[in-house]
């Protein structure tokens, strides 16, 4: 199957753009995104930009999101096929090309600085505007736990519209009313006569019809696929070695590249002595690109071995002496010097603090974190006769194409991009540094395709890191023990600023960034007054999106401090939270579900304790209860009960898998995760020094899904934020040690 964007599609979208879709700031509708075509193989007929049908009835669904283990190649087709009425066994899935209709407009909802329950005109306009922006920019991205949220309407509409067209053709052939026909298992059936026609027999004529408007969606009660634990389409190839990840791409005459990037971020190469390296077996070329020194060889191992013999020196930078301690001091100083940008404020917090009977204060810290996806960063590129072909396991296909075109100095329509499976994404593969490098290398290889592969050490030391963050809380407590003010100021580098700086250096500005304060300003608890502010220090350490982004640390800060307030008030942490959630029944229900399934309040064996945490992110609400013990100074997590309200559930088995995975990712960070800087460079280099949870440390995770008919929320990330505070709150319950810095380090062995 060729993943080529049709010229027609570009013309259509171009015409649509100039035709006035830009006017106004309304959210692009599902109908705007129906599209008209897909690249087809012989006999296949496309009914819109999302689905095509072959004469034998095989249905092919185009999925514009990248599969990185979150089950998107299954969940998204389920939406379309549910409405289409095809048999699931007849469905095939292919990666969609890059085109505007596939923009992930819902992802940008994550940047809107309003609480999720804010229905004000301003909030609504902001939500519509950012979605329009994503559409106009054609941001085809997999991230922000937004794939299902984004596809929910367009892909169901694509299925429903295609179905209506197929029914119309059958009805016309039979001379009956479409209303008297139904669709079942890939066939249109006439009710009275029982006449049947398969989709494959109808599709050619259906394509000649105009897509009808106002096609109704099925009722939830009619769903046959949505809500069922459908087996993932990508799993069979992932148990026998057949699945092709980015690193597995092999192209005829391909050569291999290894890269050494400057250990201090941003350092320039001063000198290179490659005499010894060039003598080694298999070495084809030693070259420089702006990001580092590259050895190209006939095998990757030979390239890597030769690279180790290249002597490289770097020019000094202003950051050559920077350490983690310096960065922590910098954050503290900036918080002291700067009141910060107010994100959430309600009531008179400062006044309440002045009148308080007691003020509770606490300072929290979260470190930089690496993504360390199992598949090290890589990209295959070929530049030949003004055409660029790129194979990249990327979360950002549209940006990858743009960057490839920019580096090779060709038009974007001269770039062909293939997106193989991603061996983990977690936000790291939103970046397009590997595309930039691979194309720059390919440009120096006279048309030869080249596979650039980073070592694990390069991957860990040249990540875009989850920002370190410092949080300072104050809570005012009145004579009755009520919290009358909640203030929180968070210092964390802006990932929006840093990301834009990497893409468009001239356009970047360090302005207020919701990414760094999400989950801190939008807390659900009913305190009388709230004041949450952001300070954005700049460091030389690149930062980026890491599974659950700002929520990853703000949930730890907020849910820990709420726990502190509960204990200060002498109340049970579950009951205390509950009492503050009167205005948020969905939150309350999730919290209660986790507590009751965990047996909250029931006795535990000696040496064990429970902790609870609740957090809303990416349109879903998640609560977790962790059960822990401490032995030899180490925390062991035995059991995690996880409750989630993610609206309508598309694939419950995937939701469960994502909860397990999110918890492991967050628990790895809470127990072990820390990237430190010394002499301007990252100290950790591979798994022993930046460890991950192993199977022996895996708690039993029990997932409970709140039944819901609300529009879908995200599931890839919302399970990560609550786990660290659930665990540290349990540690407090067990040891009376309040963990205010991650990763968890107990003060003395128990």
């Amino acid at each position, binding site marked *: 199957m060729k993943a080529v964007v049709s010229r027609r599609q570009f013309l259509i979208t171009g015409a649509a753009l100039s035709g006035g879709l830009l006017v106004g700031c309304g959210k692009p509708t599902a109908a705007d995104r129906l599209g008209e075509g897909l690249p087809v193989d012989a006999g296949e007929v496309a009914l819109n930009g999302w689905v095509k049908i072959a004469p034998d009835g095989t249905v092919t669904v185009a999925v514009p999101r990248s599969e990185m283990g979150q089950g998107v190649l299954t969940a998204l087709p389920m939406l379309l096929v549910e409405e289409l009425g095809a048999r699931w066994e007849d469905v095939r899935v292919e990666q969609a090309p890059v085109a505007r209709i596939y923009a992930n407009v819902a992802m940008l909802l994550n940047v809107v600085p309003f609480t999720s329950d804010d229905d004000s005109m301003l909030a609504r306009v902001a939500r519509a505007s950012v979605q329009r922006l994503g559409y106009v920019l054609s941001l085809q991205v997999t991230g922000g736990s937004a794939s299902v949220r984004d596809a929910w309407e367009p892909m169901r509409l694509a299925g429903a519209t295609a179905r209506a067209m197929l029914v119309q053709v059958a009805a016309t052939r039979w001379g009956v009313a479409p209303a008297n026909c139904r669709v079942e298992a890939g066939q249109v059936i006439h009710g009275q006569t029982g006449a049947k026609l398969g989709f494959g027999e109808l599709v050619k004529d259906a394509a000649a019809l105009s897509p009808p408007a106002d096609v109704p969606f099925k009722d939830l009660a009619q769903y046959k696929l949505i809500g069922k634990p459908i087996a993932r389409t990508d799993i069979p190839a992932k148990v*026998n070695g057949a699945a092709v990840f980015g690193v597995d791409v092999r192209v005829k005459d391909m050569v291999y590249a290894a890269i050494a990037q400057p250990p201090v971020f941003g350092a320039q190469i001063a000198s290179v002595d490659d005499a010894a390296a060039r003598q080694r077996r298999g070495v084809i070329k030693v070259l420089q690109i702006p990001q580092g020194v590259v050895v190209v060889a006939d*095998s990757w191992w030979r390239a890597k071995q030769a690279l180790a013999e290249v002597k490289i020196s770097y020019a000094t930078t202003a950051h050559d002496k920077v350490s983690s301690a310096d960065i922590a001091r910098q954050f503290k100083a900036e918080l002291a010097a700067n009141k910060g940008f107010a994100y959430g404020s309600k009531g008179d917090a400062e006044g309440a603090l002045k009148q308080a009977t007691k003020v509770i204060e606490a300072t929290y810290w979260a470190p930089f974190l690496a993504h360390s996806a*199992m598949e090290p960063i890589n990209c295959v590129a070929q530049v030949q006769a003004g055409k660029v072909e790129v194979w990249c396991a990327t979360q950002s296909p549209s940006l990858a194409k743009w960057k490839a075109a920019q580096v090779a100095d060709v038009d974007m329509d001269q770039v062909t991009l293939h997106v193989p499976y991603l061996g983990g994404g977690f936000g790291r593969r939103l970046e397009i540094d590997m595309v930039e490098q691979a194309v720059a290398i390919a440009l120096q290889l006279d048309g030869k395709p080249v596979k650039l592969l980073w070592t694990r050490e390069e991957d860990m030391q040249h990540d875009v890191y989850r920002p370190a963050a410092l949080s300072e809380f104050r809570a005012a407590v009145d004579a009755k023990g009520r919290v009358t003010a909640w203030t929180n100021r968070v210092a964390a580098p802006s990932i929006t600023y840093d990301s834009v700086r990497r893409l468009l250096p001239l356009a970047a500005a360090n302005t207020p960034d919701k990414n760094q304060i999400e989950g801190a300003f939008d807390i659900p608890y009913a305190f009388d007054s709230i004041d949450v502010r952001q300070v954005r220090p700049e460091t030389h350490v690149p930062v980026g999106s890491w599974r659950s982004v700002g929520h990853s640390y703000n949930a730890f800060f907020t849910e820990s401090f709420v726990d502190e307030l509960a204990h200060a008030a002498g109340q049970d942490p579950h009951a205390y939270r509950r009492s503050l959630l009167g205005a948020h029944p969905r939150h309350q229900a999730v919290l209660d579900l986790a507590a009751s399934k965990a047996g909250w309040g029931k006795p535990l064996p000696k040496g064990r304790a429970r902790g609870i945490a609740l957090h809303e992110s990416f349109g879903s609400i998640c609560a977790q209860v962790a059960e822990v013990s401490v032995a030899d100074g180490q925390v062991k997590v035995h059991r995690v009960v996880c409750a989630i309200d993610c609206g309508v559930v598309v694939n419950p088995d995937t939701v469960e898998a994502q909860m397990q995975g999110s918890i492991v*990712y967050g628990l790895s960070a809470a127990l072990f995760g820390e990237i430190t800087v010394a002499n301007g460079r990252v100290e950790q280099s591979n798994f022993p020094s930046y460890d991950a949870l192993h199977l*022996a440390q895996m708690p039993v995770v029990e997932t409970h899904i709140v039944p819901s008919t609300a529009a879908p929320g995200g599931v890839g990330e919302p399970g990560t934020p609550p786990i660290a505070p659930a665990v540290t709150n349990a540690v407090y319950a067990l040891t009376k040690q309040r963990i205010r810095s991650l990763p968890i380090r107990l003060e003395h062995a128990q």
Partner: protein
Amino acid sequence: MHTFKLNGQAVSVDVEDDMPLLWVLRDELGHTGTKFGCGIAACGACTVHMDGAAVRSCVMPVVAAAGKDIRTIENKDDPILARLQAAWVAHQVPQCGYCQSGMLMAATALLRSNPQPTDADIDAAMTNICRCGTYQRVRAAIHSAKVPA
């Protein structure tokens, strides 16, 4: 020239003695099911079988494989592997899937040497890293693929 058996077939490669078996498999022989994860035997993504035992091929020089029986995830003649693969599908174990070749090869070696592993045996044998967090399903799948006692 180094000669060994790969999934039952004799293969020969003309490479340096110290080229790790992983890179011989992937780049010289085109068997890409075995994955590169860390290069220092820490993560287990590169796990293959040498004469039936699980080894981490990223640190195994090809010279050490000479004359040996090497089996990878692409191997179709191992009934234990086949049973585990079926269990992996039934339990929907993989997420991104990148570590799963190594997981399956480690689990196959475990069941070959210990057909009835306990949880503690599984903990001790399955030291592969999975960043997606499939561990709970890995454990369940191994238990379900045990030979009935």
